[in-house]
C-alpha cells in the first residue's frame, strides 16, 4: 500500500502539463479559465494538436491510436487536462462511439471511422435519449425496419449534445418490438447528411445552445452501418455507458473551478476586504476543497481497482463518483454566485451579436458574465448520464443488496 504517486507518475504529470503549456493556444486557454465554452473550432484545433502528439485517444486499443497508459496515467492525463484547463476531447467520439467500434465494430468500420474520430475529422453526436425515455432508456421507441440493404429509421432523439455540428450520430434504435425491451435494440451509425434528418435546437435556461432534438423521417441507413449484431445494441450501450463513467467525477474540473474561485474571491472586495478574508467564506471554500480531496482519493481507489477489473464492466462505486462529483461541481457554482453577488444579474449571451450589448464593456467584474449561466447550466450535471437518483438506486441495489 503506497498512496502516493510514484516518481514516474509525477514525472508523467509534469510532462503532460508541460505539453499543455506549450501547445494549447492562449485564446482557448483564456476562455476555459473564465468558464466560457470553447467553440467548435477550438475543440477541433485542440484535438488535432493532441492527435499529432499521439494523445488523442489514450483509452483506445494501441493498434488504433491508444497510448497504452495504465488507468492511473489515464487518470493523471484527464485530471491535468481538466484542471489546466484545456478543452476535453469530444466525448461522443473518443469516449463513446470510438471504444464501441473498436470493441464490437467490423474491420471496415474500424478502419474507416477510428482514425477520423481520433483526428476529429468527423464530429459525432449521441442518439440515445428520447422524449419518453429519460432515466428509463431501454423504453426507447425510435424504430429501424429492415428494407433490403437499408434500415429505415423513424422516430425522435433528444438532448443531443452539440448535434448541430455533427457529421455522424450513433443511435439506439428498436429493431424488434416483440421481445423484452432490452432485447430488441440495435446500435446504428447514421450519417447526419442523410435525407429525412432534421435537427432542432433546444435552448437551455442559461441561454446556450448545447442540445438538440433530432427527428428521423424515413431515414435510410445502409445495413453496413449496424455495429455488431442486430438486437444486441443494449449490450454495446451498457459497455459505452460503463466507459463514460470512468471520468464522471470530473475532479480536475472542480479543481480548476476551486482554484479560480480562490483567485476571484481574492480580487472581489466587500467594503474594504477581499471576500476571501471573510472567515465564513474561507471555511466554505475549505469545506469544499476537503470534499474534493476526499473524492479525488475515492476516484483513485476506483482507478487503482480498475487495473484488476474486466474492461467495460463499470464499478458500481463509480456511482459515488457521479453523485459527489456533481454535488461538488454544483457547489462551486453556488460559491461563485456568492462571490459575484449582484453582478450575477446582467445577461450577456456568449454567442450573440451586439444587440444584447455583447460588445459593450462588461457590467461589474469582467469575469462575471458566465457565472449565473454556469450555475443554471450545471444543474444538468445531476440529471444527465443517469440522474443522481438513479445512481443511488444503483448503490442501493448493486452494492448494498437492497
Amino acid at each position: 500500500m503506497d498512496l502516493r504517486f510514484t516518481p514516474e507518475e509525477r514525472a508523467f504529470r509534469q510532462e503532460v502539463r508541460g505539453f499543455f503549456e506549450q501547445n494549447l493556444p492562449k485564446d482557448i486557454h483564456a476562455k476555459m479559465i473564465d468558464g466560457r465554452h470553447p467553440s467548435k473550432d477550438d475543440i477541433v484545433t485542440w484535438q488535432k494538436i493532441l492527435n499529432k502528439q499521439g494523445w488523442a485517444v489514450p483509452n483506445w486499443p494501441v493498434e488504433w491510436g491508444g497510448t497504452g497508459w495504465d488507468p492511473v496515467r489515464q487518470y493523471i492525463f484527464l485530471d491535468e487536462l481538466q484542471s489546466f484547463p484545456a478543452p476535453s476531447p469530444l466525448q461522443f467520439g473518443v469516449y463513446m462511439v470510438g471504444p464501441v467500434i473498436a470493441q464490437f465494430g467490423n474491420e471496415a468500420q474500424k478502419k474507416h471511422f477510428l482514425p477520423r474520430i481520433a483526428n476529429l475529422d468527423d464530429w459525432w453526436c449521441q442518439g440515445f435519449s428520447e422524449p419518453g425515455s429519460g432515466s428509463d432508456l431501454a423504453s426507447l421507441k425510435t424504430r429501424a425496419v429492415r428494407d433490403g440493404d437499408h434500415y429505415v429509421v423513424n422516430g425522435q432523439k433528444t438532448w443531443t449534445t452539440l448535434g448541430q455540428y455533427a457529421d455522424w450520430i450513433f443511435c439506439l434504435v428498436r429493431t424488434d418490438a416483440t421481445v423484452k425491451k432490452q432485447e430488441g435494440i440495435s446500435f446504428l451509425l447514421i450519417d447526419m447528411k442523410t435525407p429525412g434528418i432534421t435537427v432542432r435546437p433546444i435552448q437551455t435556461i442559461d441561454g446556450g445552445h448545447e442540445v438538440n432534438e433530432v427527428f428521423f423521417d424515413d431515414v435510410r441507413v445502409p445495413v453496413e452501418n449496424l455495429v455488431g449484431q442486430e438486437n444486441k445494441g443494449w449490450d454495446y450501450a451498457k459497455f459505452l455507458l460503463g466507459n463514460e463513467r470512468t471520468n464522471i467525477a470530473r475532479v480536475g474540473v472542480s479543481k480548476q473551478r476551486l482554484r479560480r474561485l480562490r483567485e476571484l474571491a481574492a480580487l472581489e472586495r466587500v467594503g474594504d476586504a477581499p471576500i476571501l478574508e471573510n472567515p465564513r467564506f474561507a471555511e466554505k471554500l475549505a469545506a469544499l476543497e476537503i470534499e474534493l480531496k476526499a473524492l479525488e482519493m475515492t476516484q483513485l481507489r476506483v482507478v487503482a481497482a480498475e487495473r484488476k477489473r474486466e474492461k467495460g464492466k463499470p464499478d458500481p462505486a463509480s456511482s459515488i463518483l457521479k453523485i459527489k462529483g456533481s454535488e461538488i461541481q454544483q457547489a462551486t457554482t453556488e460559491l461563485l454566485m456568492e462571490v459575484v453577488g449582484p453582478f450575477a444579474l446582467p445577461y450577456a449571451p456568449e454567442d450573440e451579436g451586439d444587440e444584447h450589448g455583447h460588445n459593450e464593456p462588461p457590467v461589474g467584474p469582467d469575469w462575471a458574465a458566465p457565472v449565473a449561466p454556469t450555475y443554471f447550466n450545471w444543474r444538468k450535471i445531476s440529471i444527465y448520464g443517469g440522474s443522481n437518483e438513479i445512481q443511488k438506486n444503483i448503490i442501493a441495489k448493486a452494492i448494498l443488496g437492497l
Partner: protein
Amino acid sequence: MDFDLSEEQSLLKDSVERLLADRYDFEARKRHGKHPEGFSPEMWRAYAEQGLLAVPFSEEEGGIGGGTIETMIVMEAFGGALVLEPYLSTVVLAGGLLRHAASAEQRAEWLPGLIGGETRYALAHGERQARYDLHDVGVQARRDGEGWVLEGEKALVLHGDSADRLIVSARTAGGRRDRDGIGLFLVEAGAEGVSRRGYPTQDGQRAAEVSLSSVRVGPEAVIGSPEGALPAIERVADEAIAALCAEAVGAMDRMHRLTVEYLKTRKQFGVTIGSFQVLQHRAADMFIALEQARSMSFLATMMAEADDPAERSRAVSGAKVQIGRSGRTVGQGAVQLHGGVGMTMEYSVGHYFKRVTMIDQLFGDADHHLARVARMGSLLAA
C-alpha cells in the same frame, strides 16, 4: 393574530389574479418580454386601470391606502406569473421614497403621473464597488447655485433603461462609505448628461448602467434632506425586500405546483414518477421550504412597517435568508424533478428558478443577510 385577508384584501387578490390568469400565462409572458422595453406597456396601463399602481399610496395622494400586506398580495401574484413590468422599481422603490421622503408639494406633483401609469420611475442607487452596502455611495452631488450637479456612475439600475425618471442617490458630504451625507435627486431620464446602457437580466427583465456627466438639477429635485437620505433608502430597501420575498413565494408556489403536476403525469419505467418515494419526499421537502418561506414572507410584510429600524431590518434580513435558502431548495428541486425539460427555455419552470435565483442576488443574498442578522443579535423575541 389573524391570517385571514380582509374583504378588501380578498378583492384585491382576486382582481390581480384574474387579470394575470386572463392576460399573463406563460405564452403571453413570452410575448410581453419581446417589447422593446422588455415588458408590456399595455399591461402597465391595465395595472393602472385596476388601481394596482395606487396600492401603497394614501387616499389624499390619490392612492388606495394599502399597506405592506396589499403590496404582498400584488407581488405574490406577480411572482406566480413571472410579471416583467417595473412594479418594484416604480411603485415600491421610487414610490416608497416619494412616500417616505418627498415633500407634500413634490408628492402632489409627481404621484398622479406615477399612479396613473404615465410616468415610470427607477431607483439609481447601486454602484460597482458598493455591492450590497446601501451606505456606499460614490456619485457626487455638488452645489451649483440653488441647484446641484451630479457626477458619477450607477450600476444595476433595475428597469433603468425604460424609466421616464430616475431617483438618483448621491453624496453631498462625507466619504464614500459614510452613513451621513447622502441625498436623493429626481432626474429626468432625458436630461442632459444622463446616458444609459440597458441590458437584459438573467431572469428576462431589464436593467441599466447609468452615467451622470455634469447633470444639473434644480432645488425642487431634492427629495428630503440632502444629507440625510440613508434612513429612507434603508427603509425602502427593506420594503423592497419584503415585496421580493412575496414575489419569490408566488414563484416558488407555482414552481412547486408545476413539479407536483409533472410527477403525477410523467411516466418512466411504466409508472408515474410521482410513485417513487424518493421523489415524493423531495417534493415534500420543497413544500416545507415553500411554507417556511411563506411564513417568513408574512413576517417581513408585518415587520417592514415596524417603527424600530433595527427590529425591522433584523426581521427583513431573516426573511431574506429564508427566501434565499428556500428558493434554492425549491428551484433546484423543481429543475431536478423535471429532469431535462426543466433545463429548457421553452418550459416555464426554469424561468421561475432563474427569477427566484436573481431575487436572492438582489438587495443582498442569503449570506449577506445572514451575516447581518448575526451581527444584530438574537432574532428571537425575549
